[in-house]
């Protein structure tokens, strides 16, 4: 008989090993799934996980890796602060869209200026757009005790509706023959988030994501605010006793995650996506939730998880074009990753005993 026995404290070994094990299980389950779809499972898994880094066309895919990873990491880092404190911002997608609208809108308002101040201003306004969108659930929660999960999630759909509205209205390209979508930022150099190192896919968003990782690492390990965030997540009552003001913490955590998601949206729309369009957002705000958990809410872990998740995007694209796998299969793969990770968490908190003998 299998029996679960609670560990005195979570096992560090398993906490580190479960993400890897989850990846392996995802590959196995994904392989089975692909074989049902009529694809050779080994080839599919290789196309998704191996070829983008080491394959024949890796020179192209490697650059894509950082382009996809940067927004995921930037958003996930912000989310992890809240998640650590038990504040569940599920609406990063909405904050990401609002950041893009604010940032891009501000830049487009000055077209065709060549001032070097345009791009920094867009970064700030992008952060502001995400921040203000996150303040809605924050204020509703602190003033009226609403559930931030529901409010932030519902605001995603509001943001999507606004995106649809501005891309065919307010921000539509006046020279675009009536097609929806804004001007392309390629034609607006002062506002374009261009590659700094093209072959590696490094743009300002990548740099910002790296800075965010380092900043968050220092915040969590060295700073009193980071200590309070961890304390609140571990034990809310002890945190109150220790003088943590829950209202302040909710506003800070939601605000920071909103601002980072907003910046990510701005970098995406003014660079890789190129323009505000109805569907420039590719669900990064939701995928980042998986990234945050896959990375164990730890900055370095998120950095690695972001790269891994980017790999599934890039590899998924490759598999879609070369093997004809449906795009939904890739989303399934990403979902499985989170599923296996959460299921395996049982191993870090429990020990499995095989019989009912209780050893002395």
């Amino acid at each position, binding site marked *: 008989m299998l029996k679960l026995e609670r560990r005195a*404290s979570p096992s560090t070994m398993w906490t580190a090993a479960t993400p890897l094990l989850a990846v392996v299980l995802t590959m196995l389950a994904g392989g089975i799934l692909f074989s049902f779809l009529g694809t050779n499972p080994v080839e599919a898994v290789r196309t998704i996980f191996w070829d983008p880094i080491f394959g024949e066309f890796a020179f192209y895919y490697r650059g894509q890796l950082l382009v996809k990873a940067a927004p995921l990491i930037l958003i996930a880092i912000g989310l992890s602060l809240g998640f650590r404190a038990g504040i569940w911002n599920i609406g990063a997608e909405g904050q990401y869209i609002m950041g893009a609208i604010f940032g891009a809108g501000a830049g487009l308002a000055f077209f065709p200026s060549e001032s070097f101040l345009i791009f920094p201003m867009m970064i700030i306004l992008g952060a502001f757009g995400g921040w203000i969108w996150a303040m809605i659930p924050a204020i509703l929660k602190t003033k009226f005790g609403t559930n931030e999960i529901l409010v932030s999630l519902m605001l995603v759909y509001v943001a999507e509706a606004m995106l649809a509205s501005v891309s065919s209205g307010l921000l539509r390209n006046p020279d675009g023959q009536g097609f929806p979508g804004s001007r392309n930022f390629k034609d607006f150099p002062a506002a374009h988030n261009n590659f700094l190192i093209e072959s590696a896919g490094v743009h300002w968003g990548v740099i910002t994501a790296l800075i965010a990782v380092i900043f968050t690492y220092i915040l969590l390990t060295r700073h009193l605010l980071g200590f309070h965030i961890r304390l609140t997540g571990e034990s809310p009552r002890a945190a*109150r*006793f220790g003088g943590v003001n829950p209202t302040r913490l909710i506003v800070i955590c939601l605000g920071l995650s909103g601002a980072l998601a907003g910046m990510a949206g701005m970098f995406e729309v003014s660079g890789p996506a190129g323009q505000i369009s109805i569907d420039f957002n590719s669900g990064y705000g939701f995928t980042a939730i998986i990234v945050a958990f896959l990375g164990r809410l730890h900055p370095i872990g998120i950095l690695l998880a972001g790269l891994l998740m980017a790999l599934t995007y890039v590899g998924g694209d490759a598999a879609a074009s070369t093997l004809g796998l449906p795009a939904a299969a890739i989303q399934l793969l990403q979902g499985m990753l989170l599923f296996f990770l959460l299921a395996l968490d049982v191993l870090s908190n429990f020990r499995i005993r095989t019989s009912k003998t209780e050893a*002395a």
Partner: protein
Amino acid sequence: MTGTNATLLKVDGVTKAYPGVVANDTVSFSVEPGEVHALLGENGAGKSTLVKMIYGLVQPDSGQMIWNGAPYQPATPHVARSTGVAMVFQHFSLFEALTVAENVALGMEDPPTMRLLSQRILEVSETYGLPLAPERLVGDLSAGERQRVEIIRCLLQDPKLLIMDEPTSVLTPQEVEILFETLRKLSREGTAILYISHKLEEIRSMCDNATILRLGKVVGDCKPREKSARELAEMMVGQTLHIPSREGNELGEVVIELNDLSVTATSQFGTSLKDVSLSVRAGEVLGIGGVAGNGQDELLAALSGEAQAASAAIRLNGNEIGKLGPNQRRELGLLTAPEERLGHAAAPDMSLTENAVLTGTIRENLTNNGFLKWGDAKDFAERIVKDFDVRTPGPENSARSLSGGNLQKFVIGREVLQRPVALVVNQPTWGVDASAAADIRQALLDLAVGGTAVICISQDLDELMEISDRFAALNEGRLSEPRPTEGLTVDQIGLMMGGAHDMEVSHVEA
């Protein structure tokens, strides 16, 4: 012990081990019909494991039990109950939103109709002097009344052996007397009672025989009436007890003052504080007694700053601090240690160093522009560990890994070492072994000698009598007028605690 035939339950060489600890090591004793038998021992001595085996909740690794001459190995509490064993737990398992009768029915194998059951509850409650109305909601009952629900639930099964685990820890002295009357009556009718406690005076007045456990082993048997409380304590602890001492010290100015402090309870079954007033001088210890759930947690929260009060309701050295948060109060020197160690006074999965930071950032100056000085924090944690003899391999270990007593020493030590102007502690020695408890009390007294105003909230009356200069009791959120401890009788204390909560002893026939 007259012979095998007369013995109701014989426990013979029973051993039970858990990973890392032998809870019971070849324990033997026997109980006869009508005997009140005490199991005496400190926390962790193995009393609870032992009775759980008798009640079928835990299976022994080796050894045997004999019930009325036949082997007895209950696999489940169900088997134990049908054999005739009943148990009243220390922590009640009652639903607050249901009535007394509904709660009783839930615990029965085959409950009769509500009407019939109510009638039987009334019968039993009258016979045994345990007045209880079957239709009342359990949420509205006092702790003493809730215990009656549990006892009546047991008595309806007509048990041969009634196990009571720390039954008086939630009762006023008057309620204890009512309970004892009931138990004596049961004993006269031939029901054996296995009575678990570490309260020595109770055992001396109540029990015929005692088996004393220490670290899982039987270390002695005695007739408690023939021993002094001190002798029993030393058998239990296994060493000579150090009794905290204090020198009469001069009292200074009033340090902390409450004026008509009222705080509304945040939870449904919490207790609101109503017009609590008190003042404590420098060098004085005020003891606050009372049955659990009468506003102790709320009073601590109001003093720690976790709950907000009217600004002028709390004064520290004349400053109005009722609206200040926990850290602002710490800055002014008002420190507190809550009852719940894990999850309130300390974060379970964080290290001792991090837990030292939890309350020590301000007075120990553990931050620099918002950045934590981990080196200094570790030094502070090590100082607590050393000065308060906290048994742990080092401050990097998590709070959860410490035993209750050791963590309590850490939590109290953390506040004591921060040189408080006023210190408020709630249940400072709850679940702590006798010698560690004596050390904690001594530390509180030493603080008072050094000029700190100390408020000690506790349910242990002996503790309060030992260390406090004045005594007051909380009853339904109100605080009685504090009176000098010297010369207070148990009866007076009981009345301050709310007497028997307006319950009377029914006529118990002999």
